[in-house]
């Protein structure tokens, strides 16, 4: 569960009951499992006109044949990056998720699909799924792929996407992985044309005693953007200026300054992020430089209990535009898990 207070410069603060998540699991047998995750997002919003939403984020069956080979079918999380599959608020620093995990990896990213997963040897894990693709008609210059999620809701399955992740978890404290996602994401257009989207990602997470380090890098390529921008522009009246390449990454270091005290743990962190959703443009398009962003985020988390996190951070956002100023913001969040 996550409760946020966000105060960007120049505007009023906003209180948001950002996420309320219910997780349901059921064991039919030792070999068949059900997992369901229901989220109420933005239940209460002040100052903005954004409406709340009720989302089913996961609803799948796992058929567990062996350690090395299992089948999953239903509404499932895309196995991309650090946060998408591991998004419980006490396990990451910072009130809001990193920009990379918002615009380029549109967390929480889930689609309907089917696939295999398993683990071999001492910690080699894989997952490979065929799922519904993103909808390129909703890609934007600012938020990248974010609005393209179909979220399992009356999903267009005229095209399929494939996604896979290989991960090594065999060393205590270390998780490293690479993820790919590829799909043909244009299907609303007449006459039909394809918008092939390829995403490649690499990440690492290491924790030792009080220290936690994270790194993540993503590159996205979108094909046929002149046709895409032209078709969407004709539909909505504004050219979305979608880039043909977007990229981003972050480095983060966190340290539990207080650990094991009677009143709980306290950790401090610093994160450097870089996200450019206008990295390379098709011929004839100019990048909007305000969406070439970097951010320094510093903050702290107080865990009165391992499952409760009171977080604050200060985000210094910068961009390459000469006229549009990126606001700094102060964020306060309370998240818990039970």
């Amino acid at each position, binding site marked *: 569960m996550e409760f946020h207070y966000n105060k960007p410069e120049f505007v009023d603060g906003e209180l948001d009951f950002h996420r309320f998540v219910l*997780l349901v*699991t059921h064991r039919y047998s*030792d070999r068949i*499992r059900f*997992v369901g*995750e229901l989220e109420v997002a933005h239940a209460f919003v002040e100052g903005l006109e954004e409406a709340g939403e009720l989302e089913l*984020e*996961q609803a799948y069956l*796992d058929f*567990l044949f062996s*350690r090395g080979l299992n089948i999953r079918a239903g509404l499932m*999380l895309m196995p991309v990056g650090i946060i998408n*599959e*591991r*998004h*419980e608020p*006490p*396990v990451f620093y910072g009130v809001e998720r990193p920009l990379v995990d918002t615009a380029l990896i549109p967390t929480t990213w889930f689609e309907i699909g089917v696939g295999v*997963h398993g*683990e071999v*040897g*001492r*910690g080699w*894990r894989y997952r490979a799924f065929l799922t519904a693709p993103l909808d390129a008609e909703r890609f934007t210059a600012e938020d990248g792929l974010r609005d393209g999620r179909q979220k399992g809701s009356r999903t267009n399955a005229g095209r399929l996407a494939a996604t896979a992740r290989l991960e090594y*978890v*065999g*060393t*205590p*404290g270390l*998780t490293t992985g690479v993820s790919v996602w590829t799909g043909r994401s244009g299907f609303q257009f007449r006459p039909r044309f394809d918008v092939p989207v390829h995403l490649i990602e690499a990440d690492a997470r290491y*924790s030792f005693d009080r220290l936690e380090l994270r790194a993540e890098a993503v590159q996205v390529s979108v094909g046929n953007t002149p046709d895409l921008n032209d078709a969407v522009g004709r539909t909505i009246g504004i050219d979305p200026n979608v880039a043909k390449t977007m990229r981003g990454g972050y480095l983060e270091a966190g340290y539990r300054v207080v*650990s*094991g005290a009677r009143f709980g*743990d306290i950790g401090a962190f610093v994160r450097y992020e870089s996200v450019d959703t206008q990295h390379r443009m098709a011929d004839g398009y100019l990048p909007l430089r305000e969406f070439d962003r970097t951010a320094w985020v510093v903050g702290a988390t107080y865990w009165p*209990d*391992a*499952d409760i996190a009171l977080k604050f951070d200060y985000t210094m956002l910068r961009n390459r535009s000469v006229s549009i100023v990126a606001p700094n913001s102060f964020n306060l969040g309370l998240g818990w*898990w039970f």
Partner: protein
Amino acid sequence: MRRSFWLVCVSVVVSALGTAPPGGLAAQQGTESKAEPVVRIRAERFTFTPSEVRTTVGTRLDIELKSDDTVHGFRIIGTDVNVEVPKRGKGSVRVVFTPTTPGRYTFECSHTCGAGHSFMRGVIIVEAK
């Protein structure tokens, strides 16, 4: 019915903040088996590390589980082993397990711990002597 072919000896010690019950391993008495060093397994969302443990028939495995975050569970499928792993800062739990039949025994998290809970699995490979 794998369960009927082998014997499991289980005991659990929760050493919560220095209040470990004395004599908590009493349930081991009577097992005539060779002891190996303690196998330490770290549990965190959503992995057990190591996730593969090798042993031989008749060897007493002392498994100590410690969580790096929330409460997890440790269940060896087809046996009576099913314990709760206390959350970070609340100590560890110890399982003593003596397989008498070779085979591959899957263990898994038995306490719902988040979105990837069903990925938390591992295996104990028991080889013949």
